[in-house]
């Protein structure tokens, strides 16, 4: 068992896993990683189960000290410079590979590039109590994770027992993170609450992620959408990815921490295969929506699962020379891979 002692928490670092299922009927949101593919790849890189809890980083990473033992860590979902400082010597590593950190070493993770969020997994997983079957932090409900909140300086986060045997693994061809500009959606469940012109606008206009964006959802700037009568419906259920439109006519794309039910009409839902890309978007990003059928969306998700499985199967030991020539590895990481978990067509 080792412990991460947080020196600097980063803008919003929280414990997340694949989410809290089975309690939405009680008003409890799912939460979980904004980019669940990154979570699974980070966990795979350190030998964890896909369901293990890790740290989700937003915009920039934390600085922490590894205590009470060593730790094997891996960052996935964004590029960032990872510095490991031990015995007065600083070594830099890229994301998408496991790194062995000796006891007492300090780890500094810098600004994320190519994405607004990333996952830092530690072999064994974050050993915080499971609440309703999940270790995910519910920031609004204030439970799960570490005291139901984002990390703060001084937090001591226990890591479960793990004895990573064998060499550190590397993902030879990381998925490309560049946003293709389009999120695929299934229209509904209240598409008919919008005027025909509004539905056409929604599928042709460019929208921009506003500054009002967090784990619950992102407000989009662009042409407002008109209603046949009004934005209000008798509240019904919300799925992650649903796009609700309040009276302002400006869409809100709902993400992992979304409320379980809501009273605004929903014009469409982003398909699950595109949710990781949606979760990575930063304020200012431009996007468009393209409609697909439910069957096409299900097929896209199955294809994505196969791509993730291929990525996990491709993990290979880090080549010994690479640790010495970290600059080369750093540059290599900035080049998009040929296999993408995020693009399925």
């Amino acid at each position, binding site marked *: 068992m080792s412990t991460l002692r947080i020196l600097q928490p980063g803008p919003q670092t929280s414990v997340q896993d694949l989410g809290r299922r089975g309690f939405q*009927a009680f008003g409890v949101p799912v939460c979980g990683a904004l980019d669940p593919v990154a979570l699974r790849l980070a966990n795979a890189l350190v030998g964890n189960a896909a369901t293990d809890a890790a740290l989700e980083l937003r915009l920039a990473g934390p600085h922490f000290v590894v205590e009470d033992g060593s730790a094997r860590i891996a960052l996935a979902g964004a590029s960032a410079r990872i510095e490991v400082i031990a015995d007065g010597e600083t070594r830099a590593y890229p994301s998408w590979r496991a790194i062995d950190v000796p006891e007492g070493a300090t780890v500094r993770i810098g600004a994320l590039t190519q994405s607004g969020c990333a996952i830092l997994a530690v072999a064994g997983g974050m050993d915080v109590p499971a609440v309703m079957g999940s270790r995910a932090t519910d920031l609004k409900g204030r439970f799960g994770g570490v005291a139901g909140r984002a990390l703060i300086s001084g937090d001591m986060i226990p890591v479960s027992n793990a004895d990573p045997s064998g060499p550190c693994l590397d993902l030879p061809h990381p998925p490309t993170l560049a946003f293709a500009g389009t999120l695929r959606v299934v229209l509904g469940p209240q598409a008919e609450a919008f005027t025909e012109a509004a539905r056409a606008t929604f599928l042709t206009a460019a929208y921009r992620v506003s500054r009002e964006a967090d784990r619950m959802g992102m407000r989009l700037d662009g042409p407002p959408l008109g209603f046949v009568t009004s934005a209000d419906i008798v509240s019904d259920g919300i799925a992650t990815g649903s796009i609700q439109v309040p009276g302002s006519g400006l869409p809100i794309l709902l993400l992992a921490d979304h409320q379980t039910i809501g009273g605004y009409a929903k014009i469409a839902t982003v398909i699950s295969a595109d949710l990781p890309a949606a979760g990575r978007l930063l304020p200012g990003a431009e996007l468009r929506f393209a409609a697909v059928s439910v069957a096409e969306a299900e097929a896209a998700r199955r294809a994505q699962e196969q791509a993730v499985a291929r990525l996990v199967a491709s993990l290979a030991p880090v080549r010994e020379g690479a640790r010495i020539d970290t600059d080369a590895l750093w540059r290599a990481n900035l080049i998009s891979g040929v296999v993408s978990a995020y693009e399925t067509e």
Partner: protein
Amino acid sequence: MIAVAAWGQMQREDGQAGTSGDGSTRRLGQLARFLPVGDTAFAVEFGSVIAPDINALVHRTAALLALAPPAGLIETVPTFRSLLVHYDPLVTSAEALQATLAALDLGETAGAAPARLWHLPVLYGGEAGPDLEEVARATGLSVPEVIAQHSGTTYRVYVQGFLPGFAYLGDLPAALDLPRLSVPRVRVPAGSVAIAQRMTGVYPLESPGGWRLIGNTPVRFFDPTLTPPTLFAPGDGVRFVPVDATEHERVRVAVDAGVFIPHHETLAGESA
């Protein structure tokens, strides 16, 4: 109650389907329609309005699916008039799961009878209910009349959601029907008893909120360490009991000490 029929009622009036009281089945496919919600969920919509019989069908369906979950079903979210079905597209498909659900026999009873009638102590007005006097002005009632109307009604737990443990309680007396605040509060204290349109409810956690605050109860509605984590279950009855500041404080201390058990009685045989 607003006189708009449920989908099933409309169909029953057309003689297409429905219960006849002679033991014939009521298939879900004849009472509801399916609406697409991406590739991991779909809505089963029984109607478009808030009504106890429509809500009872929703909870009936949720209960039947919980007893025998079809392959690939993850969880369901009952709302006033629809059931959101979350599924795993790697295990099943919307088409396959909807076919299974359409054949579901909802049986003769629309829904489970309310199991419990809860009595919740409420301190009305003052700091505990900063909108009480405004509610009285806007409705043309006196403050005691507002309290009498609000506490003189047995409410139904229609739905839980919005916040963990937040229960939508209906139906609020028509005399108290006011719109939500035009500018929502940034901070509503936990325990605030609030009204909006034809609903009342209690904020289980401090949160932003646009409902009008008329009182406060010390009772806790959500505890993530308990199973289930919420005090109420769908179909429960709720009555608010006016108390003075001394009693409110006494209950608050007991709640904080973990020794307060909210008073409730069992309701038997009452149809939802």
